[in-house]
């Protein structure tokens, strides 16, 4: 009895102290675990219409819908070009021309004129503009193009894509890999690509993802006259992070000059695709969505 009591006391004290020492670690490990496990959750909006058709692959991959969380990858693409350089070359051309010359001199105007005439510039301010135009504010006295209104006019239609090309140039050009894909293996990898034409379950899913991503950014053309004629085909090239590398008009080949419903349709279509980028698509299927044809217009119903 005398021996048993101290032994028991020692035994219990040991258990209590062991628990006291060990328990916090057990608990903290549990917390640590929960903190470390980051579950990427993406909220995916399902539109009323999806392009997923009857082609059903048994792949149980609803999780694949969740692409990698790439928040760090997107900002660098936008931030590197805060300076106005890309549009520098436009500036010399950008002389605001004078508008309508009704210009009834003040003496001529009737004091009781209820609707006084409204003038816009005559020729006078034009030279005025050119003189001060050594542009003190332009950062670099970059390539100053001669002010050629005709060339300007023609270039302007093309200039829509200029920035695309320039951002493309400026981007860190992640890997020369995409080029290799194009140059080295012309038919093979492309032939292997299971694209929309084949309507596999995967591409249908990718189509649906793109559909749901682009549609909210496109305001449509219902408000324009003859909207059924306003169909715009574009081809886009994306990098692995879903950023737009290139965006081209396929049909019509270029934005119509001047004011026209098709001009508005082209503007809206290009803006929609640019605005909604970057696109979150499964990176492991990059080959399938590197190049995408995007068609916006009443003629492009679901397949």
């Amino acid at each position: 009895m005398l021996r048993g009591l101290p032994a028991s006391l020692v035994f219990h004290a040991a258990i209590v102290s062991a628990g006291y020492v060990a328990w916090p670690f057990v608990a903290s490990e549990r917390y640590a675990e929960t903190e470390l496990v980051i579950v990427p959750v993406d909220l995916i909006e399902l539109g009323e219409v999806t392009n997923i058709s009857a082609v059903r692959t048994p792949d149980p991959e609803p999780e694949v819908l969740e692409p990698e969380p790439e928040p760090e990858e997107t900002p660098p693409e936008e931030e590197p070009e805060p300076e106005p350089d890309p549009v520098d070359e436009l500036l010399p051309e950008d002389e605001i021309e004078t508008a309508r010359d009704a210009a009834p001199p003040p003496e001529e105007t009737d004091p009781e004129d209820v609707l006084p005439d409204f003038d816009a510039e005559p020729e006078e301010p034009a030279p005025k503009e050119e003189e001060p135009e050594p542009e003190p504010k332009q950062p670099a006295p970059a390539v100053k193009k001669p002010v050629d209104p005709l060339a300007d006019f023609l270039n302007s239609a093309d200039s829509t894509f200029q920035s695309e090309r320039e951002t493309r140039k400026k981007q860190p050009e992640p890997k020369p890999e995409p080029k290799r894909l194009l140059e080295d293996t012309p038919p093979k990898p492309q032939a292997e690509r299971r694209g929309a034409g084949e309507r596999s379950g995967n591409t249908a899913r990718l189509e649906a993802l793109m559909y749901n991503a682009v549609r909210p950014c496109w305001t449509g053309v219902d408000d324009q006259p003859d909207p059924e004629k306003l169909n715009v085909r574009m081809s886009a090239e994306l990098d692995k992070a879903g950023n737009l590398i290139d965006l081209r008009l396929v049909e019509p080949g270029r934005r119509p000059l001047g004011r026209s419903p098709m001009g508005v349709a082209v503007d809206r279509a290009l803006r929609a695709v640019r605005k909604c980028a970057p696109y979150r698509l499964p990176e492991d299927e990059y080959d399938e969505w590197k190049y995408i044809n995007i068609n916006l217009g009443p003629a492009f119903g679901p397949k």
Partner: protein
Amino acid sequence: MMKRLLAALTLGLASFAGAASAQLEVNIQDGVFQPTPIAIPDFTADGVEPEIARQISDVVRADLESTGLFTITPQSAHIQTDLDIEVAPRFADWKIIKTDALAVGSVERITVDGVEFLRGSVRLWDVYGEDLMRLDGQPGRRFRTQPEDWRRIAHKISDAIYTRLTGETGYFDTRIVYIAETGPKDRRVKRLAIMDSDGANVQYLTSGTFTVLTPRFSPEAQQITYMSYESTQPRVYLYDLKRGRQEVLGNFRNMTFAPRFSRDGKSVLLTQAINGNSDIYIMDLVTRRTRRLTDDPAIDTSPSMSPDGREIVFTSDRGGSPQLYVMNTNGTRRTCPSGGQDLACRITFGSGRYSTPVWSPRGDLIAFTKQSRGRFHIGVIGTDGTGERLLSESYLDEGPDWSPNGRVITFFREPFPGASPKLYSVDLTGRNLRLMKTPTDASDPAWSPLLQ
């Protein structure tokens, strides 16, 4: 060798084409309508008080916002504040705040031949395209006017931006003529008034001694025709805005009313009531010759001409109740939508009474007032009588007239019995219904064409 090379080339091309066709393809048929976000920071001031530049910016913002097609990005959200009209903006700063377009402007004071002018300039940037958007084919627009007309600079700028972003001609640099009403209901004073399209610069053209009704603008916006009780009986008058003078139109012995200019402004359509029977006439403003267009024992009134001048829509109760009819201006027979031939074809068959038709400047629609089940509506219908749509409903909605681009309709409303009439505007979708502010009660609005 050559053949083999050709074959290889063909094969290569075929496989390439095959690959291209297999590319991922996304088809979207309809978009999601939402107002376009646009940023219009306060214009910079050069040699003028910053307050004027700010006021001009305010008017531009208000103009565009009133269309319901744009949302103005609040200035408090702007990141870049060092904008210069001669320097491209930092697009990234504008993408972050999700604005689609950016208007950068400046206002300056200039002197031409010793006369001082205010000059406003603007450039419009496509934020996501990182490019300049051409305004009327130009890399920017610049307008000048006498300092007291600074609002017109703002309206012109709004028109230029609106046109670029919607593809439609603007309608901000316009005026609206209407009947200003004051005083108690039993002794109402009705004066002819004119204001800018946004309700500013109201001026009264008549004193109110005589009641005036149904004013209409000429296509040149220099003349107004209206009905006045100035003489013993109501007559159609012509008001010259330049000279500030009015004259009786024609030498009719009977009551004339419901005037409206033809599309070329060279003649006026009106109704003349002879022994209780109203018919439509057209008067040449140069020769002052009158031609009778309808000859029917029923009441024919409220004529409005199509933009090409070939057709006229009017109200007639020849079918038993007031309905809309279309006839050829030259009085020849026409094929009606029903298939038969007639001098005038009925185009409305819905329940209710149709009146005050106005042909759209675009030519595709006719706006009207409809009375049905004790309620009034403003609606539109195709010129062949198809596609009727009601855009508004109230206790009393009446007197529609089109904006010069045919996208917006103005009318007046009395929301309940005894209420004061006010001017409203509604766009063709019916979604954007707005009260137009006037200092007094107002009715019978008419929109001017775009000012020159």
